């Protein structure tokens, strides 16, 4: 894989390699696993073992807008489970799923580190804090209006 060319073929770069592929493609395809395995000269099953250990890595294509619902302690006590439910109701997807139109995917994550703004979600890395239902639905609506562009 061209993307991995600059990366030294040292085993310790394996996670870095998977991260690079995911940053590029959004997820790790079977083909990518094979190519990573080739790059480092390690068995495919070993690559699978490593990538499936870490929560960061996705084996399926995520939505255009990746929503991360923070379930860190502060967010949790400020009602992150409700935030999640609002999204479940609005988007009709559950944790780890992608909407049919491929626009949104959602997952709950451990702390985003913005505890003072709890509850928070991040969408493609941008953090939205001090959420209530109305505010959240407005944010989702804005993304929907942006649509596929």
């Amino acid at each position, binding site marked *: 894989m061209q993307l991995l060319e600059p990366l030294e073929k040292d085993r310790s770069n394996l996670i870095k390699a998977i991260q690079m592929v995911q940053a590029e493609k959004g997820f790790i395809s079977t083909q990518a696993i094979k190519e990573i395995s080739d790059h480092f000269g390690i*068995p495919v*099953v*070993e690559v699978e073992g490593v990538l499936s250990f870490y929560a960061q890595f996705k084996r399926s294509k995520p939505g255009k807008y990746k929503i991360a619902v923070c379930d860190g302690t502060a967010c949790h006590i400020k009602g992150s489970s409700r935030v999640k439910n609002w999204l479940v109701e609005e988007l009709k997807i559950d944790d780890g799923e992608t909407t049919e139109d491929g626009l949104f995917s959602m997952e709950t994550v451990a702390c985003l580190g913005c505890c003072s703004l709890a509850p928070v979600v991040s969408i493609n890395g941008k953090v939205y804090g001090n959420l209530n239902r109305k505010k959240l639905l407005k944010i989702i609506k804005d993304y929907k209006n942006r649509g596929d562009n």
Partner: protein
Amino acid sequence: MAKVNLRIDEKEITAEEGQTILEVAEDNGISIPTLCYHEQLSTSTSCFLCMVKDKKTGNYIPSCSSKITDGMDIEATSDDIFEMRKTALNLLLSEHSGDCEAPCTMACPAGIQIEDYLRAARKGDFLEALKIIKERLPLPMSIGRVCPRFCEEDCRRNVIDDQAVNINDVKRFAADLHYEDYLEDLPKLGNKKIAIVGAGPAGYTVAYYLRLKGIKSDLFDMMPKPGGMLRYGIPEYRLPKDVLDTELAHFEKMGGIDVYCNQKLGEDVKLDQLKEDYDAVVLTIGSWCSRSMRTEGEELAVGGIDYLEELGRQGWSGDDPGETIIVGGGNTAMDCARSTVRLTKQDVYVYYRRTEKQMPADQIELIEAQEEAVKFKFLTQPIKLRKENGRLILTCIKMELGEKDASGRRKPIPIEGSEFEVEADTVIAAIGQSTDAPEGVLTNRWGDVDAQDDNYLVEGNLFSAGDCVTGPATVVEAIGAGRETANSVAAFLKGKEYKRDYNINVSRGHWQSLSKDDLVLIKEPVERKRAELEYISDKQRTNSFKETNKTLTEEEVKKEAERCIECSCSYKEDCKLKDYSEEYKAHPEAMVGEKIRFDYDMRHPEIIRDPGKCIKCEACIKVCKEVVNKYLLEFKERGYYTRVGTELEKPLPVDCKDCGECIEVCPVGALDWKEKKR
């Protein structure tokens, strides 16, 4: 190499530096359990069964990974450690899925290894089949005819096509075929001798298994011929007495089992004397007293078991009893009704106070009785019996179902004003039986002999088993108890305390709660309907006491045995989790929680992978990587959802059939050969 001094379980030990506590303990005869440690593999430190306590810090440490140090003081055996290991095993059992034992074997009161004998039968090796059966059951010809087939009720074949394997008729065939030319390996007889009072199924079973241990016994029976309930309770058409004679003759052939008939306890033989004359005495006197109807005029009715006994004494013949009403809904009521059908041309009725569905009689008995034109009246309760003009007049009342009672069944309650009268020549009260316990013997609140649950001991050197302990039950239950009693008596004779084996059974559940996808099928089930017995003509059935059905043919039996889907764990003989769980008294239900449903993998021609059994010890992964130098397996996912996976979930390479190292190191059969070993 430097030497290190340490203590394990108070024992002073000198060992080589660099060794682990586990290695040193083993070298010094201190056994420490482990599921994940293998000498040829790097340590995984996963199972935590090998925990020991560092007495200096009070910490529990895994002995497989902890290197010895000078002055170490280790506790490897103690109540605390036992408890921790037990907890580890309980945890592992709570995520482990499988079936240690087949449900048929679990259901069988005698615990026969049914899958094994079906496998032998399938191959046509009926002598082997009989041998397997007789490890648990000494009366297969009789049981092959009269067993209520608890095994078939729980048979997983039901999941495939709603028809259990016809297990009992395979047994009947094997027994009929080889009974006369089969003889066990018999040890020499010793000088111990026990007395058994009651030569029924329980008594014979005790004698049989004691004989296999070289212990003699004398059987005493009050009836003119031996066999107990088999001869005098079960009618000829179900169990021909010439078959019984053949079966009982075998005991004589074995030597060391002597039977004395017409010996009534309390008259011809005295219990105290027996206790003195013999090393031990076993009471297996059955449960022979008819319970009365507790209604006015009850003395005018014949007791069910008395009625059968009388027919039995007359060689299963008798006078025409005329129009007959049998009161009761159990197997004795069915035996009475069906016997009466064979003696009279007049109507035979069964009156039962609950509904058909609630009848305690076996389903097959009810069906066959109906086929033989026995007439049933349900929700009918007799309240009075009187005699007028030589005929009996039975007053009954109609019942309806009310609230559930203690047995969980809806209780029948009389409908006011619904009394009616019926006439009959004979009324038989087959309400139930009780035990006539000999004087001076401890009894429980039901009047049955009070033997201890775990060792069948009554007191001193007196033991008891069978119906006289449990109340009226099935023959196969009496046999199960008889075998354990023999073990208990044998232990007693050696001066040892008898402890029933502690066996665990992990189960995927009853077939009713399972679908085909829940089963692990090591081969595609054959598509075949259950083989059923051929019956003699209806006319023959109602005219005579001739046996109602014929034994299956050899071809039928072989094919029927193929229907077994072999649902027990293929690895049960080798399973270390099972062995340790039994040693540490762990229990599969001690901790209940989610069990992940993994698909099993049959795609390799010779190897099955069943990840539901896996305990994540990592041994398969390590042996493949470190010893075989392949890298075909690896953990995937993490935490509770960790599993062993293959490359892109593909099947293992075909070449793996020549290696099998992973199967060798697997403690639980998550990897196994498809072909069963036995």
